[in-house]
């Protein structure tokens, strides 16, 4: 039992080594990869699912996980559709957006109950993070959605040779006091995460406003040319 009241012995954290917070989380919790977690039959009190998956993959993973354990799940839904996941998986009692870098070290989350809220806050405190509760997280978390659209626009601007990356970043910082320029912000979040979210929003809503910039696609980690 740690000082924040979380019994880490009875908590399973599902996380891949490439997750930006893998080492930090590994220090505090028993961790397993997605594949290993599906093979595990130990009784846990709580599952912390940090798999970074879009809606369809998340849904399939949680479906498989449900065969393994009935423990409540707090899942990273940075790239997934919260309303859909909650509807299909009553086992999910909370969600958070850990993937999208925050300049203030704060994390957007939602919780079905006050006790889950408390658990999330305790867990985040262990990682020197603070949680901000979002009670209306339907299509996506708010911050990732807004910042992805801003970053996407910056990449459209680059694509059209409107200005160089440094001037774009400087303009947004010194013109409208952004804490970071959108180009550097995208680097910190990871352009693939930005691209994945935009593609997910596009697929769910079929709204053309979420069309990613070709230049963003080109520069994303996995060069997704879908």
């Amino acid at each position: 039992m740690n000082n924040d009241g979380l019994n880490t012995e009875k908590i399973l954290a599902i996380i891949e080594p490439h997750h930006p917070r893998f080492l930090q989380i590994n220090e505090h919790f028993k961790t397993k990869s997605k594949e290993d977690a599906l093979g595990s039959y130990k009784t846990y009190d709580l599952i912390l699912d940090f798999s970074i998956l879009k809606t369809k993959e998340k849904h399939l993973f949680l479906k498989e996980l449900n065969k393994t354990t009935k423990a409540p799940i707090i899942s990273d839904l940075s790239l997934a559709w919260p309303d859909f996941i909650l509807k299909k998986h009553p086992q999910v009692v909370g969600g958070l957006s850990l993937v999208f870098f925050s300049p203030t070290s704060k994390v957007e989350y939602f919780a079905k109950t006050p006790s889950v809220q408390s658990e999330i806050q305790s867990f985040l405190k262990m990682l020197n993070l603070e949680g901000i509760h979002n009670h209306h997280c339907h299509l996506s978390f708010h911050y990732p959605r807004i910042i992805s659209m801003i970053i996407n626009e910056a990449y459209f601007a680059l694509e059209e040779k409107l200005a160089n990356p440094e001037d774009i970043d400087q303009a947004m910082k010194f013109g409208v006091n952004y804490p970071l320029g959108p180009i550097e912000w995208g680097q910190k979040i990871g352009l693939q995460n930005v691209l994945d979210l935009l593609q997910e929003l596009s697929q769910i809503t079929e709204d053309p406003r979420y069309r990613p910039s070709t230049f963003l696609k080109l520069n994303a980690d996995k060069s997704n040319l879908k």
Partner: protein
Amino acid sequence: MDIKHVLVVGAGTMGQGIAQWFLTQKVRVELIDHQYEKANEAKEKIFSNFDLLKSKGKLTQEEITIFKDLLHVTTQEQLSKETDLAIEAIFEDLNVKKDLFHKLDKILPEKTIFASNTSSFPITELGASLRASRRKHFLGLHFFNPATLMKLVEIIQGQDTSADIAIKLKEWFKEKGKTPCLCADAPGFIVNRIARNFYGESLRIAQHYDQERFREIDQIVREVGGFKMGPFELMDLIGIDVNLNVTQSVYEAFFHEPRFKPHRLQKEMVTANKLGKKTKQGFYQYE
């Protein structure tokens, strides 16, 4: 590049701020306005600002004496031929601006750089009917309010603008402590374009009038995103109508690109005259 003499046309908020900033760089400033009295009032306001800064210990008497001596309110008929840079900061009417530049083109020497502080009109279009030699010296200089404090100046190159002049101007502003950013001539330039979905996406998250939703979105944007203000409180501060006008302008200029589509909620607020702080009711209520 050496800029020793600037003409500022338009004695409104931006013109006054731009004039004041150049004065603090020890640049001679001629200030004109189609209403002569307005230019004089701006001069008095600038002088009053300097006095206030001196009372706060931010300027010395020697400095404000120099700055005040450098400001001259004049008329179009009496403009100096030594003008290095002429900046237009009049109200946003395309034909009025074009007419102004035509008149100045006949009065001012060929070496004078012409600049528009417009946020709405294409720079290329503003300078299109000027003679070719002038078009090379024609660009946008988009200052941010208040021009005396905000470091950013967008330097917008029209299709005919000399790249050399734009770069040298950038260097000059940088030496003077501004943060100049070069950009091509496109709707919204850099800031007004890239900032659009700070508001647009937030409106789509909210979907309808719900102060609890506005408060939550503002809180998340501020606390998780690190922004100084959330989108709804910022729209209330700027003016919901002002923000909508910029959005509509960018949307039209991009031939209805979906990313820039205005939101019904914003239009409803403006129609209901709920414009923000200035009407004491916007997304939030004010005393």
